[in-house]
């Protein structure tokens, strides 16, 4: 357990006080002739409803820690991530949602088991660890998959004649698109790599902030953050590679003809 008991509850009044900050800036903006009241109100309402709902739901799951409830929650999160990812890619490539969901499920399950068993050492299937860690993996891996696929499909469309020129010389789809695959993978993984380079210097990363607020010793918080970073590189990289391989299979026919 990360000393959850030591965290102070802001309370509903505290929450209202923090919301006042948002009201203040929106009102000041209005004095400048910028009306963002409506957008702000919608965003505030959505954030509040979504987070309170998740808080209540997780509270229920945490209290019981039924294995099936944890699994169900993770499954729903995976499906939402896969669907959202598919939607984001829709402009360049349609119907990738199920594929991304499937790959996200496999990679997340593998990463979760490995990290909890060998890195953190959680030997019981507890919601407190599995759901937040699963969420971080899913969110990042989904973004990576979207970046990789979008880049690959866009490059393929842009350079379809060049790819066909290679195919006409006997290149396989893998050979003909090797450079594009490399660029797509790099595009997916670079944000995390860059984040690792400056982590802790410019600002404290999310997990470290969270665990510190939770009352954990700073060095332990730093270790948690490192575990998470290595885990994210694996999750992002593996998901990107698998999704790229699957997409590559889909955009060519068995006779090595480009279908974009």
């Amino acid at each position, binding site marked *: 357990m990360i000393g959850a008991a030591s965290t102070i509850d802001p309370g509903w009044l505290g929450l209202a006080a923090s919301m006042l900050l948002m009201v203040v800036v929106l009102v000041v903006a209005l004095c400048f002739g910028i009306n963002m009241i409506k957008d702000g109100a919608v965003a505030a309402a959505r954030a509040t409803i979504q987070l309170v709902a998740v808080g209540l739901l997780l509270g229920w799951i945490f209290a019981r820690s039924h294995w099936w409830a944890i699994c169900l929650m993770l499954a729903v999160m995976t499906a939402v991530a896969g669907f959202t990812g598919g939607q984001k890619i829709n402009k360049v*490539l*349609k119907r990738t949602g199920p594929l991304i969901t499937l790959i996200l499920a496999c990679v997340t399950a593998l990463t979760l088991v490995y990290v909890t068993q060998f890195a953190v050492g959680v030997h019981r299937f507890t919601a407190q660890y599995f759901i937040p860690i699963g969420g971080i993996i899913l969110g990042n891996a989904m973004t990576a998959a979207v970046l990789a696929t979008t880049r690959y499909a866009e490059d393929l469309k842009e350079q379809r*004649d*060049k790819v*066909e*020129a*290679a*195919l*006409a*010389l*006997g*290149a*396989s789809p893998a*050979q*003909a698109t090797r*450079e594009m695959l490399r660029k797509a993978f790099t595009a997916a993984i670079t944000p995390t790599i860059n984040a690792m380079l400056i982590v802790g210097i410019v600002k404290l990363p999310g997990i470290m902030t969270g665990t510190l607020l939770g009352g954990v010793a700073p060095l332990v918080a730093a270790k948690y953050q490192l575990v998470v970073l290595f885990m994210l590189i694996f999750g992002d990289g593996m998901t990107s590679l698998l999704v790229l391989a699957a997409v590559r299979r*889909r*955009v060519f*026919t068995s*006779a*090595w*003809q480009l*279908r*974009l």
Partner: protein
Amino acid sequence: MPDEPAIRLTDVRVTAAGLRSMLLDPPVDAEDQAILDGVSLDVPVGDVLSVLGESGGGKTTLLRCINRMIDAEAGEVQVLGRSVRDWDVRELRRTAVFVPQRSYLFGGTVRGELIHALRWNNRGAIKMPFGEVLEAVGLSVPQDKPATELSEGQRHRLCIARALLLFPKILMLDEPTGALDVRTAREMLAALVAWARDKGTTLVCVTHRPEDLEVLGGEALILLQGKVAGRYPAADVAARKVDADTSAFLGKPSGVSS
């Protein structure tokens, strides 16, 4: 089967709708027309065939059926007596090599560009006649020169040399002289025809320029609106000794557009 033609097309039909249907996300509002409309054709082994016709008349599509870049919706395409669907794809594409109209470089020196194609076909570069294929397209540049430093015309010839290095049984060129001046074009075509004759390679060449035919020799196929409008000895087409419709398309010898 020594008597099998290098290429045989039997009543081949390709439509815009058919090509769209193989796409993952076919556009919905596109028009539908036949690109190749019942094309039948034999090209005997070792022959030279030029393909002429207006833009959008199906010339490139015809070549793309032969190396199976696209599949015909109806009819059959045979290469060396075997349906293209029965060939191993890589085997087919290095037997009937297609060089597109635009030149594409894959990175590296002149020699490096040539090696790309060898590597894709799991062939080693040792003892490969790099000098011979460069000579066959009339390209005299140092092999260690970066390919990006070549002129457009030189790049195109390098692309043809890259195809030659696979020693194809059939070489298909899509407007190989487009980026070249008249004199260089003649020299290159003459060298290519000599190379093809020497190796027994069948040469299929799409061209816009009737004057290319004088050098290419062999026969010329006129493709208009997806149909074979005529097939004549190349010399006759070059001299406009053909029927009225075809002549009208070819224009007067002096005012030919490139």
